[in-house]
C-alpha cells in the first residue's frame, strides 16, 4: 500500500519531507500535535478541540471517551481528514497530512484510513455486496479481488447470505457490520470508529465490541470514540477527553493499581451489589 495515489497532486511540500525508510522504527502510526478546531456556528465560536497532542502506535487500540460535547467526535474527524484543524500538525506513518487537499485525503481514506460512523452511512441504493466492494474497486482492486475480499469479510462478520440485501432491510447491528466490512476492505493501517455502537441495542453493542476486539487481536490499529465505558474498556488505552482537551491518558490492564489486594474474585467488590 502506498500513501499517495499516482494522480495525487503534490501540493503539500512538507508531506514529502520525511523520507520513507529513513524513519526510526519507533515512528508512531499517528501523531497529532497541538490540534485546534473551533466551530463557527450561530452564536459564540465553540472551541471543540483545544490543543491536543496524541500519539498512536501501530497495533494499538485506543479509546477516546468523554461526555457528549467534549469534542471527541471533532477530534476523530480531524484525525480522519473529514475536518481540517485550525492549528496544529498531523502525521500519518511519518508523513505530514494536515495540509492535504480534499482529493488527497479521499485517497488516504480509501487506502489507509477506514472509518465507521454511528449511523453506518451506507449507500442506501446499493446492495450490501456493492457497498463493501465499491471502496475496493475505487482503490484499484480488480472486480475479482474486490469480490473475494468482500466475500471473506462478510463471512467473517456473519453476514453470509446478506450480499443481495439492501441496507434498509438489515438490522442496525447488521448494518454496522457491513460498515465495518466496508471500512476494512482495503486493509487500512488505521481504523477510526465514531460511536460505532451509539445507535445499537445492547446485543448489537456486544457484537461490535467483540468484532473490534477480534480485529485488534489480529493487529488492526484502532482509534475508537465512545461515551460508553463498556466499549472503551475493550481498548488497551483510554484517553479521557474533556472540554476539548486530553484530561487523562491511561493504559488499561497494565497495573491494577495500589490497594484492594484482598479483593476476592478480582472484581468481587464491585459485583457484590451492596450486600
Amino acid at each position, binding site marked *: 500500500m502506498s500513501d499517495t495515489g499516482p494522480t495525487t497532486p503534490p501540493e503539500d511540500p512538507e508531506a514529502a519531507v520525511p523520507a520513507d525508510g529513513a524513519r526510526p522504527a519507533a515512528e508512531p502510526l499517528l501523531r497529532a500535535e497541538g490540534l485546534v478546531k473551533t466551530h463557527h456556528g450561530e452564536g459564540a465560536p465553540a472551541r471543540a478541540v483545544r490543543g491536543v497532542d496524541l500519539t498512536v502506535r501501530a497495533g494499538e487500540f485506543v479509546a477516546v471517551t*468523554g*461526555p457528549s460535547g467534549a469534542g471527541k467526535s471533532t477530534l476523530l474527524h480531524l484525525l480522519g481528514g473529514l475536518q481540517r484543524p485550525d492549528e496544529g500538525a498531523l502525521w500519518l506513518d511519518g508523513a505530514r497530512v494536515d495540509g492535504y487537499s480534499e482529493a488527497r485525503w479521499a485517497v488516504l481514506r480509501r487506502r489507509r484510513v477506514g472509518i465507521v460512523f454511528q449511523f453506518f452511512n451506507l449507500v442506501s441504493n446499493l446492495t450490501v455486496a456493492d457497498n463493501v466492494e465499491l471502496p475496493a474497486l475505487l482503490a484499484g482492486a480488480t472486480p475479482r479481488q474486490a469480490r473475494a475480499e468482500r466475500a471473506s469479510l462478510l463471512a467473517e462478520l456473519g453476514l453470509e447470505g446478506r450480499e443481495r440485501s439492501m441496507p434498509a432491510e438489515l438490522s442496525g447491528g447488521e448494518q454496522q457490520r457491513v460498515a465495518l466490512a466496508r471500512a476494512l476492505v482495503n486493509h487500512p493501517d488505521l481504523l477510526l470508529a465514531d460511536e460505532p455502537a451509539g445507535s445499537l441495542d*445492547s446485543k448489537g453493542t456486544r457484537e461490535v*465490541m*467483540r468484532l473490534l476486539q477480534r480485529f485488534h487481536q489480529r493487529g488492526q490499529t484502532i482509534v475508537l470514540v465512545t461515551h*460508553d*465505558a*463498556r466499549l*472503551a*474498556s*475493550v481498548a488497551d488505552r*483510554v484517553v*479521557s477527553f*474533556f*472540554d476539548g482537551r486530553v*484530561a*487523562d491518558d*491511561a493504559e*488499561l*490492564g497494565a497495573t*491494577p*493499581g495500589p490497594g484492594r489486594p484482598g*479483593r*476476592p*474474585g*478480582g*472484581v*468481587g*467488590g*464491585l*459485583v*457484590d*451489589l*451492596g450486600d
Partner: protein
Amino acid sequence: MRLALLALLARGPAHGYELKLELEKLLGVAYPQPNVGQIYVTLGRLEKAGLIEGEEITQSSRPNKKTYRLTDAGREAVDAWFEETSDEPRVRDEFFMKLALAASSGLADHLTLINRQRRQYLNSMRELSRLSASEDRDNRIPQLLIEGAMLHLQADLDWLERCQEELE
C-alpha cells in the same frame, strides 16, 4: 451469605461442600466466592440459631460429613428475606469523602483524584468485560450479575465526569 445458604437449603438437605459448589455455579466467576471454611462457620452459626439442623452421616472410607436441613424457623427467615426490599448500593462512598476533603485539607488535587479513580473503574470495567466473555453466554444469572455491575460502573464513570465538570 447466611440467607443465601438458607435459600439453597429450602430445596432440600445438603452438606457444606455441595452448597459451596451450588453457589459457585449459580453466581458465576464474577461473584466473590466464599471459601469452604466460611461456609462451614456460617452453617455452624445457623445451626446454633436454630435455623438449620445438622445430621452426621457416617462414611466408611472418608471422614464423616454433616448434612443440613432447613428448620421451620429457618424457612420463616428465608421467606422474610424475600419479602423485604434490599438497600440500594452506595450513598456512602469513600471516594466522595476524599473528593470532598481534597480541597479543604489541601492534601490532594481534585483532578488527580478523579483521573486515578477513573483508571480504577476502567480497569474494573475491562475485567468485567473479560469475565463476561469467559462466562457461558447462556448462563443468564451470572451474565446479569456482570451486566448489573457494568451498569453501576458506567454510572460511576458518568458521575466522575460530572464531578470534573463542577470542580474544574
